[in-house]
């Protein structure tokens, strides 16, 4: 490989050029790439190996947690009620859906304890939905930070999902109060809440990483995302019993569509939480609808969590060196 630009013209250096006296003859002909390689220099901002990347990311865990807390505090710092909104927002959300779907459209037919049913759905779904929305902006909203400091960029989508996790934990306390107030008794099934939410967390991190890469290079996704999440909301059984719709679809000969509804990760995580926190009522509702007991839910949840997390992480990592460019 020759580099014509690097050769100085034999007779006429441009006026004013300072040529230091060559201190080592013969080395001038060595290509700079070879020279760099011999001294162990690597291409600027090359992607680290996966193992090193994961280690670096693990080392940033305090950053991730602190970033999430600081951002949450900053979000509410301008409002009078401050972080009270973290409790109020989910409650108001649930109130709106209850007004429309519980009272006006009476979707509650045949569903035991519809209030708890609905609020569980809203809170659990919001966790995934907001993780996705936040993930899409996580790289593009932090370009200044990305360009100034070096850190594994995956820390940003992680931090945004942790932010939503902190919100979810507050929502879950609210949910526990609502569920007990509407007549459910705490049972051992409540413990299943933890693995269910842990799997959802993995899933959310995965989709957030994937959408973060898309959002970093295609801003248009942020215009499109509200429609995607709204469609997802309406098919995820937040207001209705998925088993009901599956049955109706089977009767009309669209069984395959029913299977998709059942396997939809949005619905899977909602149902797992319902099955845990309002076990008796939920099983009773299923029995009334003539639906089978949920057997595949945990399988779906584990598969979704692993596929999304591994796939999302890999997809995000593959573009690591390109974030912040332009």
């Amino acid at each position, binding site marked *: 490989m020759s580099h014509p630009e690097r050769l100085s013209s034999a007779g006429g250096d441009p006026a004013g050029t300072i040529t230091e006296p060559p201190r080592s003859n013969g080395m001038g002909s060595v290509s700079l790439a070879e020279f760099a390689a011999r001294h162990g220099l690597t291409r*600027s901002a090359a992607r680290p190996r996966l193992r090193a990347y994961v280690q670096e990311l693990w080392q*940033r865990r305090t950053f991730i947690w602190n970033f999430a807390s600081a951002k949450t505090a900053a979000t509410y710092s301008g409002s009078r009620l401050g972080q009270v909104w973290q409790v109020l927002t989910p409650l108001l959300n649930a109130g709106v859906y209850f007004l429309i779907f519980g009272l006006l459209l009476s979707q509650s037919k045949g569903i035991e304890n519809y209030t708890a049913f609905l609020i569980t759905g809203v809170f659990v779904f919001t966790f995934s939905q907001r993780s996705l929305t936040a993930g899409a902006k996580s790289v593009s909203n932090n370009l200044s930070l990305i*360009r100034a400091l070096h850190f594994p960029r995956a820390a940003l989508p992680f931090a945004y999902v942790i932010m939503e996790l902190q919100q979810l934990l507050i929502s879950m306390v609210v949910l526990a109060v609502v569920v007990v107030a509407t007549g459910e008794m705490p049972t051992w099934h409540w413990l299943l809440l933890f693995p269910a939410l842990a799997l959802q967390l993995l899933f959310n991190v995965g989709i957030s990483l994937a959408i973060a890469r898309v959002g970093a290079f295609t801003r248009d996704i942020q215009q499109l995302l509200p429609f995607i999440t709204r469609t997802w909301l309406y098919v995820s059984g937040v207001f209705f019993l998925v088993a009901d719709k599956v049955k109706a679809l089977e009767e009309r000969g669209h069984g395959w569509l029913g299977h998709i509804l059942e396997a939809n990760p949005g619905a899977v995580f909602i149902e797992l939480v319902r099955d845990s926190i309002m076990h008796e009522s939920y099983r009773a509702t299923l029995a009334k609808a003539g639906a089978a007991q949920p057997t595949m839910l945990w399988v779906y949840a584990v598969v979704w969590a692993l596929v999304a997390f591994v796939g999302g992480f890999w997809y995000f990592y593959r573009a690591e060196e390109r974030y912040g460019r332009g």
Partner: protein
Amino acid sequence: MAVAKALKEKVPLATAQPEVVIDPDREPIVVVDGLHIVYRVYSGGGNKGNAVSALMRIVRRQNRPQMKEVHAVKGVSFVAYRGDAIGVIGTNGSGKSTLLKAIAGLLPAAKGAVYTDGQPSLLGVNAALMRDLTGSRNIILGCLAMGLSPEETKAKYEEIVKFADLKPGFIDYPMSTYSSGMGARLRFAIAAARTHDVLLIDEALATGDAKFKRRSRAKINELRKDAGAVFLVAHNLDVIEETCNRVIWLDDGRIKMDGDPTEVLKAYTDATGK
């Protein structure tokens, strides 16, 4: 494809840059090898993209007609060694900022390559790290993001606050309320809390006052001693003369001179008629 076209206009040999001389006694930290940077910009004017014409372009799979290519860096080669503080000078549009961005890995090379030891950090003019967070949060998160442990962060905190020398109370205000000078100071203070292999400073110190300039010069010298390299783009030539041990003069994307600060700066001021 289009990039290749832009590269075809060969650099005439007469204006080629001075030959790179390798110093075998010193350890290189940045090697820039025949670097070309071409980027696309959307120039205004003409048919300013209404919805129908935008749709037609997509249908016909055409690029936006106003898109122009800028060949900002045209074959730059040099070697920077550990302990170097290199000033980069040149008129507006000569490719200084582009070169720094490319060294930081923020712009892909159209041809050639940049090799570095370690990860370069670029401090640009945009002053805030996290605009909506307070200064003190920015310090903590900045340190943690750079990989410092919580203990190290705590230990460095006071030093950073002192170095940034903000007006009392401002440390608890969001960074979006800072003046550009204050923001730049805090940002530089945070970045300087860790030793960097390669630190690229693009006019980030320009907004500081005389007192801060003095302290930042001391800090840059300290960073150099830690065996890294510092690159400095500044329009204020005094800063370069006082801080750097070597100056690269870029002219229209090519290196015009590379060497001792006094000589290069003199030639530069003579040429630009300052």
